[in-house]
C-alpha cells in the first residue's frame, strides 16, 4: 500500500489494539485509511493481554493508541484498567487513548478515561481526523452551502431534429398567438410589479393600483380586497408565529445535520411543503434540509388556482396548501437555511404570471410553469392558460428564474407520449423566449403503465424508457417527479419509504438532475403530513443511494421497446398538433390528451382572454 501520499500531514505513530477478535474490522478500516495518508500504523494481534499491549505500545512510543471492544458493564472495568495501566506506564505522557466499539460514546469514553470514544456509527474519517488533529464535530454531518444551478451545462439543443423542428414550429405559433392576447392574469402580474415598487414610496399611487388590482379579482379573494373579510379557513399570522420562523434562521449555523445523510449532499433531492401554516412549513423545511433535502417546493391551496387574484399579508391556512402571498413567501424565506433551493410553483391556475412575479420578489430560485397539464388536468381554460403561461415564461426569463414543466396529466390517464409532446412544446416555447426550463416527467406508476402492462413486471423499464427518450430528444435537465413513485406508495410507511427511495435512486441513476420525493405519508389522506414522515423518506433515499452506489440499476430489454414506442408516439402527436396549426385548438380537440384518456379542457377562466389593444 502506498504510504506518505498526503501532503502537509504530520505522520503519526498509531497502535491499534483489538481487545476482542470479533471487533477488529473497524480497526482494520482505520488502519487502511491511516496508511493511505502516510501514518505509521501497527495493528496488534487480538489475543494479547492488556499488560502485553501496554508493554508493546511502550516499546513503540506511539502518538495514539486505539482499542476496540464491544462494551458491557463487565467489560467497562477492564477498559478502565487498561486506561490505568497506560497511565501508570507513562504512555499518556505522549499518546492519546481512543476507544471504539459497540455502545461506545463520548460520555462513556470520558468516564473510562479515554481521550476520545467512537461509536459504531462513527465514520472512519472521524478517527483519521482525530489522529490528524483536525476539529471534527462527530455529532453532525455536512451540508453544502452553495446553491446548485440545475440548468448549468445544458445547451437546450434538439438531438432529435425531426422532433425539434416540430416542437419549434408549434412553440413559435403558440407564442405568436399568445403575444396578441392578454388576460386579467397578465394584467394583475403587471399591476403587482407596479404596486410593489410604489408600496412604500408612493402610498397614493399604490392605493390606486391596488383598487385596479381588486377590480380584476374574483370570489373570496375579491371579497377580501373589498371588505377585508378573511378567506375561509385562514387567519393572520401572529407576531409570536413570525418569531418562531425568525429563530430558525438565527440558529441555522448551528443546525445539526445527521452524518448518515451526507450522501444526499451531491444529489438534488427536493421535498414539497405546504401544510397551510408558514410556521409549520418553516419547521418542516428546516428538518428536511437537516436530513439532506437540497431543495423545497411551495404548495399553495387548490382554491388559489381557481380564484382570480392573490391575497396580501401573511396568513395561516387550516387546510392543505400554504397561501401564496408575498408576505407569506418572505416569511418562509426568512427561515430558509442558506444554500437551499426554493421553488415557488406557478403552473396551473389563474394566477400563473403573478406567481412568477412573487417568486422573483421573494427571492425564490425556481418556479414552475405549465400549460398543458393545467389545461387538461387541473381545470384551467386552455386558451387562458396559454396566454398566462407564455407571459409567465417571459417573466421567468426576464428574472432569470428556471422553471420545470410537468406531465402530471399522466395521472389523469393521458399517455406519456401525448404528455411528453405537450411538455416538449411548452419547454421549447420557454427556450424560444430565453428561458431555462427543466423537464419534469411523471416518474411513477401511471394509469397508462397499469393499462398497457408497462409496469406489470417492474417499475424500472417504463421510467428508464421515459428518461432515455427525453435525453435522446433534447439536451435539457430532467427533474422527475413530482413526487417520484406516485401511485406506488401505500399507507404503510415502510412500503411507502421503500418505493420512494427506489424511485429516487432509479431517477438519479438514470441521469436526473434533481428529483422530488414524497413523505411516507404520501398515501395517507386523513391529515397533514408529519415531520417524522418527512424524515422517513429522506433516510430511505440516502440508504438506497448508499446501497446502489455506482452499481447502477439495469432495466430489461423491454425498456428499449418502450422507448421506441414513446418516441414514435411523441412524433405522431407533434405531427398532428403541427398539422392543426393551432396549439390552443389542439388542446381543446384532444391531440395532447382527450376525454378517453381522462383529460378534460378546464373551464376556470374561460372567456377571459382578450385581444391586446
Amino acid at each position, binding site marked *: 500500500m502506498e504510504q506518505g501520499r498526503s501532503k502537509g500531514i504530520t505522520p503519526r505513530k498509531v497502535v491499534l489494539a483489538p481487545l476482542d477478535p470479533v471487533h477488529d474490522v473497524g480497526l482494520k478500516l482505520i488502519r487502511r485509511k491511516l496508511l493511505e495518508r502516510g501514518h505509521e500504523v501497527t495493528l496488534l494481534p487480538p489475543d494479547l493481554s492488556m499488560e502485553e499491549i501496554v508493554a508493546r505500545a511502550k516499546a513503540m512510543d506511539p502518538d495514539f493508541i486505539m482499542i476496540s471492544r464491544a462494551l458491557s458493564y463487565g467489560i467497562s472495568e477492564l477498559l478502565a484498567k487498561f486506561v490505568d495501566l497506560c497511565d501508570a506506564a507513562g504512555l499518556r505522557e505522549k499518546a492519546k487513548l481512543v476507544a471504539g466499539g459497540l455502545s461506545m460514546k463520548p460520555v462513556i469514553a470520558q468516564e473510562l478515561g479515554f481521550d476520545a470514544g467512537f461509536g459504531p456509527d462513527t465514520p472512519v474519517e472521524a478517527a483519521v481526523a482525530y489522529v490528524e488533529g483536525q476539529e471534527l464535530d462527530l455529532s453532525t454531518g455536512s451540508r453544502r452551502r452553495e446553491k446548485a444551478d440545475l440548468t448549468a451545462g445544458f445547451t437546450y439543443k434538439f438531438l432529435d431534429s425531426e422532433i425539434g423542428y416540430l416542437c419549434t414550429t408549434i412553440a413559435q405559433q403558440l407564442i405568436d398567438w399568445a403575444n396578441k392576447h392578454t388576460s386579467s392574469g397578465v394584467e394583475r402580474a403587471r399591476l403587482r410589479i407596479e404596486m410593489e415598487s410604489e408600496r412604500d414610496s408612493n402610498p397614493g399611487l399604490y392605493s390606486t393600483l391596488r383598487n385596479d388590482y381588486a377590480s380584476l379579482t374574483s370570489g373570496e379573494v375579491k371579497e377580501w380586497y373589498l371588505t377585508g373579510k378573511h378567506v375561509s379557513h385562514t*387567519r393572520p399570522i401572529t407576531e409570536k*408565529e413570525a418569531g*418562531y420562523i425568525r429563530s430558525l434562521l438565527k440558529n441555522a449555523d448551528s443546525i445539526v445535520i445527521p452524518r448518515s445523510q451526507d450522501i444526499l449532499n451531491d444529489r438534488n433531492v427536493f421535498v414539497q411543503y405546504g*401544510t*397551510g*401554516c408558514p*410556521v*409549520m*412549513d418553516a*419547521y418542516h423545511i428546516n*428538518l428536511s434540509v437537516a436530513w439532506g433535502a437540497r431543495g423545497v417546493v411551495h404548495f399553495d391551496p387548490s382554491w388559489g388556482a381557481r380564484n382570480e387574484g392573490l391575497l396580501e399579508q401573511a396568513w*395561516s*391556512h*387550516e387546510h392543505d396548501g400554504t397561501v401564496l402571498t408575498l408576505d407569506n413567501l418572505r416569511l418562509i424565506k426568512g427561515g430558509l437555511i442558506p444554500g437551499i433551493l426554493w421553488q415557488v410553483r406557478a403552473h396551473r391556475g389563474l394566477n400563473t404570471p403573478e406567481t412568477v412575479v412573487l417568486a422573483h420578489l421573494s427571492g425564490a430560485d425556481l418556479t414552475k410553469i405549465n400549460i398543458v397539464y393545467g389545461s387538461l388536468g387541473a381545470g384551467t381554460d386552455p386558451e387562458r392558460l396559454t396566454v398566462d403561461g407564455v407571459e409567465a415564461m417571459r417573466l421567468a426569463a426576464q428574472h432569470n428564474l428556471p422553471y420545470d414543466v410537468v406531465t402530471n396529466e399522466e395521472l389523469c390517464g393521458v399517455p406519456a407520449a401525448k404528455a411528453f409532446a405537450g411538455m416538449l412544446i411548452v419547454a421549447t416555447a420557454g427556450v424560444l423566449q430565453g428561458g431555462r426550463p427543466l423537464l419534469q416527467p411523471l416518474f411513477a406508476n401511471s394509469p397508462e403503465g397499469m393499462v398497457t402492462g408497462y409496469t406489470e413486471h417492474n417499475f424500472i423499464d417504463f421510467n428508464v424508457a421515459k428518461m432515455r427518450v427525453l435525453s435522446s430528444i433534447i439536451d435539457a435537465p430532467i427533474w422527475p417527479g413530482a413526487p417520484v413513485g406516485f401511485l406506488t406508495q*401505500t*399507507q*404503510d*410507511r415502510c412500503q411507502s419509504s421503500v418505493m420512494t427511495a427506489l424511485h429516487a435512486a432509479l431517477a438519479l441513476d438514470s441521469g436526473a438532475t434533481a428529483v422530488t420525493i414524497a413523505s411516507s*405519508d404520501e398515501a*395517507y389522506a*386523513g*391529515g*397533514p403530513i*408529519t*415531520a*417524522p414522515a418527512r424524515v422517513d423518506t429522506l433516510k430511505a433515499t440516502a440508504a438506497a443511494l448508499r446501497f446502489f452506489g455506482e452499481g447502477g440499476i439495469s432495466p430489461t430489454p423491454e425498456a428499449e421497446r418502450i422507448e421506441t414506442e414513446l418516441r414514435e408516439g411523441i412524433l405522431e402527436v407533434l405531427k398532428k398538433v403541427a398539422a392543426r396549426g393551432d396549439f390552443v385548438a389542439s388542446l381543446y380537440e384532444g391531440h395532447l390528451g382527450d376525454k378517453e384518456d381522462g383529460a378534460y379542457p378546464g373551464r376556470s377562466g374561460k372567456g377571459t382572454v382578450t385581444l391586446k389593444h
Partner: protein
Amino acid sequence: MSIKHRILDGCDVETFILCKDVDEGKTLGLRLMAELGFEDADVVFCEMGGPGVRIRLRGYVYRPSADYQWYDQEV
C-alpha cells in the same frame, strides 16, 4: 406542562394488536390512543396478518395553524 406539547405535529404509535379482524384492530387502536390521551387520533395504516393487525396510529398534537406551545413552558 406535558412533554406532549414539544411534539412538532403528530405522534405515531406503531404496534401489533391481537384481534380478529381489521375493524376490531382499528377500534382497539383508537381506544389505545384515547387511553394515551390523544384527542385528535386516526389510523394511518392497518393490515391484518396472522393473529392481529400491524397498525400505525397517529395522534395530532398540533395541526397546522394551531396555537403551538412548543416553547411556552419548561417541560
